[in-house]
C-alpha cells in the first residue's frame, strides 16, 4: 500500500472522528439548550398562571386604594421571601376593581399610593400616576400595569405570577380579560389595547370577556 493511500485512510478516520464528535455535541446540545431555556419554554409548569386570592372582597372598601400582598403561585425551595409580592387594589364600585402591579411602568421600582393627592409616586425616577393608574407625569411612557382579576366565592383573585415589564406587561399573560370598565373611568384609556390583545385560557374569549364580567360574583366565572 502506498504512503499516500495510508495518509488518506488516517485522514479519513480523523475526519470521521471530527464528524462523530460533532454529532455527539449536537445530540447533547439539544437537552442542554432545553435546560438553559427552561424558563422560556416554561417546561410543563404553568403554575404561576394560577389565580391567587387577595382576600375577601369586603376587605377592600369602595372608592379606596389599598395595598394587598400575595404569594406567587409558583414557588421553588430557594425563593425565600421573594415570592411574596405587593399590589395596589382599587375598588371602583361594588364589583369593579383595578389591581395595579407595584412595579412602576418605567423601570419597575415600587410605587407608593398617596390618597390625599390621589397619586401613585415612584421613588426612583419620579414617575407619577393618577388613581386609575393612568400616567400623570415623569418618565413612564404608559400607565401602571394591571393584573387580570375575577371574584370567586366572594374573594378577589388575580393572575399575577409574572413580573410585569414595559416590554411584556401583564396584558400578555394568558388569562381572563379584565372587565372593560376602564373606558368610563380613565381620562385616557391606556388599557384598551390590553383587552384587545389578551387571550383567555378558561373558555372566555376576548369577545365574550364582557359577558364574563357580568357574571362576576354571581356564579363561579368561567373557571
Amino acid at each position, binding site marked *: 500500500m502506498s504512503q499516500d493511500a495510508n495518509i488518506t485512510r488516517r485522514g479519513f478516520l480523523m475526519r470521521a472522528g471530527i464528524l462523530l464528535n460533532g454529532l455527539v455535541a449536537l445530540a447533547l446540545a439539544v437537552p442542554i439548550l432545553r435546560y438553559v431555556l427552561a424558563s422560556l419554554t416554561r417546561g410543563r409548569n404553568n403554575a404561576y398562571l394560577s389565580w391567587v386570592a387577595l382576600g375577601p372582597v369586603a376587605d377592600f372598601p369602595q372608592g379606596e386604594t389599598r395595598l394587598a400582598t400575595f404569594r406567587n403561585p409558583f414557588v421553588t425551595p*430557594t425563593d*425565600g421571601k421573594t415570592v411574596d*409580592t*405587593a399590589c395596589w387594589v382599587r375598588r371602583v364600585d361594588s364589583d369593579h376593581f383595578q389591581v395595579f402591579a407595584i412595579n412602576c411602568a418605567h423601570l419597575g*421600582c415600587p410605587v407608593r399610593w398617596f390618597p390625599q393627592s390621589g397619586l401613585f409616586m415612584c421613588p426612583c425616577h*419620579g414617575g407619577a400616576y393618577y388613581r386609575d393608574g393612568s400616567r400623570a407625569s415623569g418618565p*413612564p411612557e404608559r400607565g401602571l400595569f394591571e393584573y387580570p382579576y375575577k371574584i370567586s366565592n366572594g374573594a378577589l383573585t388575580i393572575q399575577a405570577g409574572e413580573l410585569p415589564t414595559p416590554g411584556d406587561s401583564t396584558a400578555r399573560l394568558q388569562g381572563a380579560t379584565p372587565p372593560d370598565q376602564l373606558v368610563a373611568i380613565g381620562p385616557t384609556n391606556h388599557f384598551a389595547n390590553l383587552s384587545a390583545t389578551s387571550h383567555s385560557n378558561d373558555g372566555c374569549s376576548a369577545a365574550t370577556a364582557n359577558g364574563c364580567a357580568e357574571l362576576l360574583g354571581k356564579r363561579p366565572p368561567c373557571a
Partner: protein
Amino acid sequence: MRLINQIGEWFEHRLQLAAPIREITVGHRIPRNTASWFYVFGSAALTIFMLQLVTGILLALIYVPSGAEAWSSLQNLNHDVALGWFIRALHGWGSNFMVAVVLIHMVQVFLFGAYKFPRELTWIVGVFLLLMTLGMAFSGQVLRFDQDAYWGLGIGASIASRVPIMGPAIVKIMLGGPIIAGATLSRFFALHVFVIPGMLILFVAVHLLMVLKLGINEWPMPGRLVHRATYEKEYRELEKTDGVPFVPNGIWKDMFFAAFILLAIAACAIYFGPFGPSGTPDPTIIQTAPRPDYFFLWLYALLSLLPPAMETPALLIGPVVVIAGLLLLPFLSGEGEKSWLRRPIAVLTILLVAVILGTFTHLAGLAPWSPQMNAWSGDPVPARFLHGTTALQRQGALIFQSKQCRNCHSLGELGGQRGPALDSVAVRLTQDQLIRQVIQGGGNMPAYGKNLSPAETTALVAFLETLHPQGQPAARDASRDQVLRESSPPPTSPDPAQPALSPSTKQP
C-alpha cells in the same frame, strides 16, 4: 543550599520553565521611557483581579446562593464569622477599585495611542475585559441580594424587556423564571463565580500574551507617526538602542503601585467597612428607594433625565454604538500620530466623557428628580411664609402640605426638587396661571383638578400668591387690568346696566 539547587534542577529537568521565564522577565526588553508611572495601571488591574479571585473564594466558603438564605449568610459573614466583614469589605472595595483602575488604564492607553497598529487586537480584547469587569460589578451587586439588588434586577429586567421582539424572552432567561426569585440569584451566582471569571482569566491571558509578543507601547513622541510598513522594524530598533530589561527596570514601579493599591483597598475596607446588605429582599416592603452602586449611578441619572420618548432608543442603541465605536477605533485610526499632544479631539473626547459621567454621577447622588416621599408630612411650611397671612391663605398652606405638593416642590429649601422651588412662584405666575397649572398640570406636573374642590383650589392659590420676595410684587396680568379698566364704569357716571365687579375679579 546544594539541596535546594538539586531540587530546583529536578523540577527544571521536567518542567523546563527557566528559559521562558527568563525570556519574559530579564530577557524581555522594554523602551527605556516606558518604565514609567503611567504604565502601572494594567498590572494594577491584574493585581486587583487576583485579590478578587482570592477574596471571592474565601466568601464562597460561607455565602449561600439561595434566595432564602443569601441575605442571612451575608449577615452571618458581617457579624458572626471572624473577620468575615473584612473579607466582604475587601471584595466590595476591590470591585470599586477594579472598575476605576480598568477605566484609568483604558484612558491612558487611549491617550498614548496604544491601540494603533499592531496592537489593535490587544485593545479589542481590552474592551471585552472592560465589559466583563462591569458585568462582574453588576452581578456582584445582585449576589448581595438585598432590597437594592432585588429592585436593581427589576430595573435590569425592565430595560431588557424593551428589546424589540426578543425582550420578553430575554427577561425570562435573565430571571430564570417568571419573577425575580431563587432561580435568578442562582444564575447570577453561576455568572459571577464561574462564567465571567473563567472568560476573564482567558481574556487576561490573551491580553498579556499580546503585550509580551508585540512589546509594550513605546512612549509617544509628537511627530513620530505609526506606519504599518515600518512600525515593527522601528520598534525593534528602539528596543535594541534604547531598551532596558523589564525586570528589574520596569517591574519595580508596577510592584510599588500594586502594593499601594492593595493597601488603599484594605484601608477603605477597614475604614468604611463592607457594603450592605441593606434591607431583606422582601418585595412586600415597598418603603424603599433603590439606588445602584456608584459605577452605575450615571446610568440612573441618565434614565431620569432623558425625555421619555428617547429613553428606549437610547437604552437599546446607545450601548451598541458605544461598544461598536470602541471596537472599531483601532481600525478607524490604526496609524498616524500617537501623542496626545497632537490629538486634541482624543483629549477633548476624554474630557467630555469624564465631565458627562462625573456630572451624572454627582446628580445621581442628589437625585433631584425623585419626589421626597416624606416631605409632605416631615417638612412643615417654614413659619416666615405664614407671617401676616389670612385664614384663607393658611388654609391654602395646609392644603399645600396635605396634598403632597411638598414631595416635589421645596419651600425654604426643604422638600422635593422634582418641580421648581415655590419660594417666589407668585412672581413667575399670575393668579390665572396658578389656577390653570394646579388644575390641569402640565410641564411634568400631574393635574390636580380631580383631587381639589373649588374651595381648596381657591385657598391653595391664595397661599401660592403670597409666595414672592418682599418688595417684589406678585405677577399680574397687565392685559386683564386693561380689560377691567375699560369695562369698569367711570365712577362719576355709574351705568346701571353694568353690574359691580364681583370680589373674585377685583384686582388688588
